[in-house]
């Protein structure tokens, strides 16, 4: 900084801006920026807010369909679910804060994604979480799992939105950089969606919610940098959540929207007041003027820079109908929340900020958004991996014993210890929570239900980004399908390492390509999402995790099925595969990872046409009442899926091999596009499958004994199945 308060390149560099970006700012302003202005540019141009490395690839994703009301670019995506109703949803990461301060990091992640949803005018009805931690035996894992889970529960349970599903992985690549991705789904009237574009010059700009403090200043920039040993010292930049205020803010905002007083609204998430005001004004093609002395603060002597860059939680910015100002104020007074007019919409195209009676910032809005850098970073894919033959991976032994070993691993063990800490049935519309394929949440006071899931297999993405991207979508699509619901649309959370490295960029580019192809094939466009880059510690990147959150719909929830084997005497049918029981894709599988301890092979290919054919057939059969239970086959393969069906239910399963012994490739292979189903009408089902050109084969039946019986092996009782499977995670957590 020089004597006149003007910034130098060194200041810009400290905020993460490049030399070119610094030059561009000066060019657009025709002068050097002051501290507040530079802070605003650096936040808006951060990777987190500008998507500068990923935009080029995100543009290739399919984003529209007849049922899409709002695609990417708003606080959340919106899809039509019929009867004048809309589902509003988004997923977002809070990776860096959660590693530094797990409870608050995760809690504010949940709070932030909920605000994104209710900002659109939707009442949130479900939360899910995709979590990735370091190795189960790593020194920090216990502390991080415990804090993150408590934080997610702490926020969601208190605000009263059920946490109904998600996924948890453990892998050494996340030892120094965990992933905490939170997804929220809400319901709104399809003609009552609220957007962020400011309207009407002269209209008042209102600040509502909690007061502004010094917490989280420049969080968006922190989230756009790599981790190092010094990261722990960044603890003060982690925001603190207050779910109680979040609840009041949610109720007040929904009440205000119902009263018809809101013209535009934007939550103060990443980059707080900066991004909310810039986005509202620029989307409206207008300008905004704010007096920062009017902003409710909870600390003394906050500078313009600090007020604009604070990421204090539970705050909203809105433009209201001036004639409704009194109504609006009364609603916020009822909920004991701050309601403060701090400025007005202008037609200047500029962001003008006053502080202590002086102009603290006067910059054109267009460059902040339109000139935000966009990089076509070099891409250098790694060489394709060879497929490992089953013989290279198989460890001989009874399949049942291998199964028990796998079920007792951190990868496949029960997550009950985690999801019992989440209130999964508040709001009283949860039909199916954690433990099945997709969660089912009833649309309040109707027969309809939303099916929701999150999925990704980072192992596959690392091995082959295009296939991995496809597989994440395919698995999510199968999970929705297996309940009987129709998959509708996707939100994605792209978690990668440093995009300036060509091999990392290749992971991003490849998986987005694969994801796009799958979304296209399934007719499930991407309507919202989030990108989290620089997930590296001391130069080592995480396993790539392009997480898919998918939402589907079933018209009558009573037609939905679960995974549980509950009735004896039904036939177990393998859908999507023929009668051959002698092979399967073990390369890069969970079996390869856990049993062969070699996951260097190529992942299973994804055949989108086959996925669609098998899934559409199954959904039709479920709707027709021909299916008693259905479970998609994913991590761990067929036998793990079968074991899960037994553990979820009150009956057992018997599975027959062809010639005495169960082949490991068949039992544990992770070939895609397959489901296990139970039916009371096997002849009809098999005939229908044949007519539809879908492969299907009888492999066993449900039995009254609560056990898994594999031909030629000792039966595995329910107690044995559940034994280690249920105790492993609690043991890890108690040390």
């Amino acid at each position, binding site marked *: 900084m020089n004597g006149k308060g003007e910034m130098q390149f060194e200041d810009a560099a400290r905020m993460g801006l490049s030399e070119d970006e610094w030059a561009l700012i000066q060019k657009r302003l025709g002068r050097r920026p002051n501290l507040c202005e530079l802070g605003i540019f650096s936040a808006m141009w951060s990777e987190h807010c500008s998507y500068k490395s990923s935009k080029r690839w995100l543009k290739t994703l399919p984003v529209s369909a007849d049922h899409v009301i709002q695609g990417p670019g708003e606080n959340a995506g919106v899809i039509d679910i019929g009867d004048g109703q809309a589902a509003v949803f988004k997923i977002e990461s809070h990776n860096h804060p959660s590693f530094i301060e797990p409870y608050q990091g995760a809690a504010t992640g949940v709070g932030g994604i909920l605000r994104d949803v209710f900002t659109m005018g939707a009442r949130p009805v479900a939360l899910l979480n995709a979590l990735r931690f370091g190795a189960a035996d790593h020194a920090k894992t216990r502390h991080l799992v415990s804090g993150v889970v408590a934080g997610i529960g702490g926020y969601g349970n208190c605000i009263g939105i059920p946490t109904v599903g998600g996924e948890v992985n453990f892998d050494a690549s996340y030892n120094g950089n965990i992933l905490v991705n939170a997804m929220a789904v809400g319901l709104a009237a399809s003609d009552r969606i609220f957007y962020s574009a400011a309207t009407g010059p002269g209209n008042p700009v209102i600040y509502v919610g909690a007061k502004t403090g010094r917490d989280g200043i420049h969080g968006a920039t922190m989230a756009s940098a790599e981790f190092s040993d010094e990261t722990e010292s960044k603890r003060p930049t982690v925001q603190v959540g207050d779910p109680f205020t979040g609840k009041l803010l949610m109720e007040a905002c929904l009440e205000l929207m119902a009263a018809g007083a809101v013209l535009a609204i934007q939550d103060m998430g990443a980059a707080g007041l900066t991004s909310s005001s810039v986005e509202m004004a620029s989307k409206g093609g207008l300008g905004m003027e704010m007096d920062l002395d009017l902003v409710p603060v909870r600390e003394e002597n906050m500078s313009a820079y600090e007020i604009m860059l604070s990421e204090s939680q539970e705050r909203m910015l809105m433009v209201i109908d001036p004639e409704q100002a009194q109504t609006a104020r009364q609603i916020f007074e009822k909920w004991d929340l701050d309601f403060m007019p701090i400025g007005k919409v202008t037609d200047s195209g500029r962001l003008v900020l006053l502080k202590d009676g002086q102009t603290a910032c006067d910059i054109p809005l267009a460059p902040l958004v339109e000139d935000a850098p966009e990089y076509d970073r070099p891409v250098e894919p790694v060489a394709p991996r060879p497929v490992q033959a089953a013989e290279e991976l198989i460890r001989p032994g009874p399949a049942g014993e291998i199964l028990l070993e796998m079920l007792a691993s951190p990868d496949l063990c029960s997550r009950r210890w985690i999801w019992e800490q989440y209130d999964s049935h508040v*709001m009283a519309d949860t039909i199916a929570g954690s433990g099945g394929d997709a969660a089912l949440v009833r649309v309040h006071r109707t027969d309809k239900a939303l099916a929701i899931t999150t999925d990704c297999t980072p192992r596959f993405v690392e091995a082959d980004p295009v296939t991995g991207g496809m597989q994440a979508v395919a698995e999510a699509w199968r999970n929705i399908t297996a309940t009987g619901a129709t998959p509708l649309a996707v939100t994605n959370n792209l978690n990668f390492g440093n995009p300036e490295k060509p091999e990392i960029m290749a992971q991003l580019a490849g998986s987005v390509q694969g994801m796009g192809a799958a979304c296209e094939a399934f007719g499930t466009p991407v309507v919202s999402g989030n990108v989290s880059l620089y997930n590296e510690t001391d130069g080592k990147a995480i396993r790539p995790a392009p997480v898919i959150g998918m939402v589907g719909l079933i018209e009558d929830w009573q037609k939905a099925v679960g995974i549980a084997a509950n009735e004896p005497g039904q036939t177990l049918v393998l859908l999507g595969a023929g009668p051959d029981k002698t092979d399967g894709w073990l390369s890069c599988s969970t079996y390869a990872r856990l049993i062969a301890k070699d996951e260097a092979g190529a992942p299973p290919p994804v055949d989108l046409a086959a996925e669609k054919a098998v899934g559409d057939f199954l959904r039709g059969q479920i709707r027709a009442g021909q299916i008693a239970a259905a479970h998609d086959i994913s991590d761990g393969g067929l036998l793990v899926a079968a074991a899960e069906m037994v553990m979820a239910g009150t009956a057992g399963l018997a599975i027959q091999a062809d010639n005495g012994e169960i082949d490991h490739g068949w039992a544990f292979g992770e070939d895609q596009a397959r489901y296990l189903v139970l039916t009371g009408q096997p002849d009809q089902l098999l005939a229908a499958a044949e007519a539809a050109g879908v492969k299907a084969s009888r492999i066993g039946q449900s039995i009254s004994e609560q056990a898994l019986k594999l031909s030629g092996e000792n039966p595995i009782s329910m107690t044995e199945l559940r034994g280690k499977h249920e105790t492993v995670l609690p043991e890890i957590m108690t040390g």
Partner: protein
Amino acid sequence: MRVAVIIFPGSNCDRDMMVAIEQITGRRPALVWHKQDSFEAVDLAIVPGGFSFGDYLRCGALAARAPAMEAVQDHAARGGAVLGVCNGFQILLEAGMLPGVLVRNRDLRFVCRETCLQVEHDSSSVFTSHLPEGAKLHIPVAHNEGNYFAEAETLAELEANGQVALRYTEGGQQGPANPNGAVNDIAGIVSANGRVMGMMPHPERAMGAGHHSADGRLFLSAALEALVA
């Protein structure tokens, strides 16, 4: 049957309870905002679950001092029936309408799971008086502070007077039957006259039709029936 549901900032089971009552009675309950110091005469006042006032200070401590709770106390003093569920139970304890305390769960973690409840048939509870003898109810819990505790003397008195209405018991659920470490497996208690009841499990979440159980509906229906009998 007239029912009122009291709403505090941070209540989050108010809607669920209203829907449940409406399903049973066909009438929407009256809503009482915490700042109201009176409400129209009702047969039953319900204090629903949630995190009233964010559970700041102590669970239920702030809500217990809200104007609406004075009205609830007046209603109870006139012999009116009161049901507190989860945070509502905590509020009734903080208001001194029931004896004992609810402290943090044994495992120091929030717990959300199915529980099985033994209905104590020799109880003085009006709420459970119409349930069949030996009834067991499958109703879920979801709480962080549901570990009921009372001093030995109070406890002995509760037991002797038949004020323990519901106890956690084995019922095929996974994990321990007692989800929170409550003394004597206590899940729900009543006042000496049997007309003020507090319980941790959420009957409004076990209404059949998509829920894992319909026993909450059974409980609420029997209670409403008994209260006007």
